[in-house]
């Protein structure tokens, strides 16, 4: 019993198959291969039957949602919307055939992403049928970004080499935004390139996690720490100058996660937080307009038709939906400004019901739990840190959004990952999901096989 507990602490895999290697070997090559894999004659096979069943289940669920979204559409809108829903379903099956059947990959993260994205599609279809095409392009673009990033991160060398250019590009993009962008709803965070409007801070989010995890993986000296801290502070500072406080806060929280995961130094984190708090107080003292942005916090009912308008309407209509919602198309919150972006959580509550809304929140929670639990099996600290900080970022952002529109936290106007309408946000959400995907060594059978063979030789 004592022996077993000792091995369990080292590795779940080792405990499950004690006959495979001596305890000395286990110690040296622990954790490389996760459990529940079939490994036969050097070949690694995933049991893939269950993904087909889940794909069918997902399709049925999405079809039901799609059908309910057709409620109240005009006859002119109907064919276009049906076609676009069809394209999305087809795209998911194509992905499954390539990734699931041909490449024999696991699908759990993708299925979650598909379903969450479908929520954004049905809400867009129901509220703005004419913008469904753009949103669908964003989702498919997101899936492609996801696939690309997953592939890209398979090779550690590529990650190491690209971190500096990506870091510089990220800062450059933010700086460019600050120079070119005009104030839009109080923040300066949109770039308009012809017909295309992008929110660079969303794209930089992915880069921020990437550079943070990649930089720190290498560093053992103070210079590279300093470099990363400067990078992070420049990003946060630029966002502050854009008056995009919500996103600045998200970056700062992610910076803390990355810094702690790497250093394990809680004292430094406390120090940074204290410094940030003092900086925040300083800003509020000398720039009162920053504080005035949050003056309605916890007083929304007193400013019900002014500063508290969006929050009070979100609460009123979220409650109106009950557990199962009033049905797509029957809501009222959709007529309030930014309903499908910042307030989308309220639209989900009102039209799809509180159960669906809670399920979406649970999804973000499970992404983070997935990353934390998977960190043990990561092949290098880059993947562990990247996955944990990406999932942490996503959950933190979801909390800012959901609790912001419901007045639990100040309203900062950040998007809800996967659900809010908007291309940049959707690309970012899928991009962050790629970090979770790359955490799982089974995503890269070739790499895993090499590691396994290496281990066998020893």
């Amino acid at each position, binding site marked *: 019993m004592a022996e077993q507990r000792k091995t369990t602490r080292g590795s779940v895999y080792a405990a499950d198959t004690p006959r495979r290697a001596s305890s000395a070997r286990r110690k040296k090559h*622990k*954790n490389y291969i996760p459990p529940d894999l079939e490994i036969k004659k050097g070949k690694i096979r995933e049991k893939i039957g269950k993904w087909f069943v889940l794909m069918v289940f997902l399709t049925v669920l999405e079809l039901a949602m799609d059908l309910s979204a057709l409620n109240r559409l005009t006859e002119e809108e109907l064919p276009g919307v049906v076609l676009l829903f069809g394209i999305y379903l087809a795209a998911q099956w194509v992905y499954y055939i390539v990734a699931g059947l041909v490449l024999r990959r696991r699908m759990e993260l993708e299925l979650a992403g598909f379903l969450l994205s479908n929520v954004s599609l049905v809400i867009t279809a129901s509220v703005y049928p004419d913008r469904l095409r753009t949103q669908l392009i964003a989702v498919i673009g997101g899936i492609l970004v996801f696939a690309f990033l997953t592939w890209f991160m398979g090779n550690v060398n590529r990650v190491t080499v690209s971190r500096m250019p990506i870091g510089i590009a990220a800062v450059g993009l933010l700086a460019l935004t600050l120079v070119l962008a005009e104030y839009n709803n109080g923040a300066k965070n949109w770039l308009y390139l012809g017909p295309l409007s992008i929110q660079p801070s969303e794209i930089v989010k992915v880069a921020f996690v990437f550079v943070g995890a990649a930089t720190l993986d290498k560093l053992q000296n103070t210079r590279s720490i300093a470099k990363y801290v400067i990078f992070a502070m420049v990003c946060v500072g630029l966002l502050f100058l854009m008056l995009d406080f919500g996103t600045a806060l998200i970056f700062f929280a992610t910076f803390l*996660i990355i810094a*702690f*995961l790497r250093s*394990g130094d809680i004292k430094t984190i406390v120090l940074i937080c204290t410094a940030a708090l003092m900086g925040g107080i300083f800003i509020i003292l000398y720039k009162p307009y920053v504080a005035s942005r949050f003056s309605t916090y916890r007083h929304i009912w007193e400013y*019900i*038709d002014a500063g508290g308008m969006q929050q*009070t*309407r979100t*609460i*009123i*209509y*979220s*409650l*109106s*939906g*009950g*557990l*199962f*919602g*009033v049905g797509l198309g029957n809501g*009222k919150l959709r007529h309030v400004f930014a309903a499908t972006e910042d307030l989308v959580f309220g639209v989900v509550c009102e039209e799809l019901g509180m159960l669906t809304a*809670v399920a979406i*929140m649970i999804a*973000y*929670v499970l992404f*983070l*739990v997935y*990353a*934390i639990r998977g*960190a*043990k*099996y*990561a*092949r*290098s*600290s880059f993947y*562990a*840190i990247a996955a*944990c900080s990406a*999932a*942490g970022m996503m*959950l*933190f952002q*979801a*909390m800012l959004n*959901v*609790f912001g529109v*419901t007045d*639990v*936290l100040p309203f900062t106007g950040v998007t809800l990952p996967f659900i809010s309408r908007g291309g940049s946000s959707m690309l970012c959400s899928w991009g962050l999901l790629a970090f979770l995907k790359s955490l799982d060594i089974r995503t890269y059978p070739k790499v895993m096989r090499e590691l396994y063979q290496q281990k066998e030789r020893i």
Partner: protein
Amino acid sequence: MNTISKRAKILYAIVAVCLAGMVFLGITFCVHGDEYASNTRNQHIYSGNVLISGGRVLDREDRVLTAVMEGRRVYNEDSVIRRSTLHVLGESGYIAGGVLEQYSAELIGYNLLTGVFTATEQGGNDVRLTLDAELCADAYRAMDGRKGAVGVYNYKTGEIVCMISTPAYDPSNKPEDIDDNEDYEGAYLNKFLYGQYVPGSTFKVITAACAVENMPDVLTRTFHCDGEYHAADGTVICNDVHGEVTFQQAFNQSCNSVFAQLADELGKEKMTATAEKLGVASSVPVNRSNTTKGSYDVSSASHADLGWSGIGQYTDLVNPCNMMTLAGAIANGGTARLPYYVDGVYSADGRLIQNETSDLTRTYMSASTASVMKNLMRTTVTDYYGEGYFPDMEMCAKTGTAEVGEEKRPHAWMIGFSQREDFPYAFAVVVENGGSGYSAAGRVASRVLSSLWDSMF
């Protein structure tokens, strides 16, 4: 990787914070959900400020005071009933404290699980009142276009059967000149629950109670009235020269000299204490409303001022509902059943969902004081007014004619109650600028109570 994975466990803190936030939000929704969802900004159930979803408001005879038909709020077909129940129902954004506002969540039938489904798909719930709409209409007619308030309640059960405030307008046909026309001045206030008036001589009930409790010999004393009371620093003018009078005669004839003298003799402390105990400056909970407090503040009063305060002038203010409750307390042996006008909430199929009757009581005075007060008020009717207004009712009452300024006619007041076991009703009537309490307010009270009497016997 073990180091990182151990450190990563601290991220469970974010998960914990998130779950805590969801629980907090859930609790907020559970506690305040009905209030938030029934906000007038909710366009599932409101159009403008009008509740266009949800159930009906019924009177005690199940007359429909208001309901929703085809997405519109409609009111009773009788225009007098519409006017007389206007303030009870309230109009969101204009007349506060009405049933439609205070019971919107119940009318909607809101609950966290089904949201507004009960309201939008099943017609919501009904709220039944203890009011008799016909009696309210009679009271409205009796006011005959004058401004004021009328309330009648059963002092044994607490049920308010009549409660009106004038001026009122027709909610189905709101006058366009309402904000400019003087006739509608004050139409947005339910004066019975939320109004404040100079009490005039009805305040002598309070001064008398104070004297009875604090001067053991007051009932046997005789007083002299030569048309005014000469305080150390001024005079209080009486309405007549009453000569030698007993305490009871002074009360019956509403002699200012005697009551000013009594207030002065009793002093600020005792008068204030009694006014406090008799609920002048406190509010009465009436279902979800709290009546507006009156005031009795003699802290900087001279002797003459104190005298004036004892006859309901000076800075005295009272609320009609509070005065009705005081009359009810005397009738009920010193302890009042507090009034209420909402009986309960019923589902569309008539099932009682929520009982709103109140069994609150409040002790105003000892039983012995109440019995003396009852006798004073009874003899006022038998020996002074005569029973012409209230035949067979064994009425006990006190009128007031409250001076409200040089140029204006005084407010007419009457409060009282029937002693009969089978007619246990107390009332308060105020007619603004109505002139004499007895002739103006008395006539309104007579008409309303006779109508109630006829409906019962």
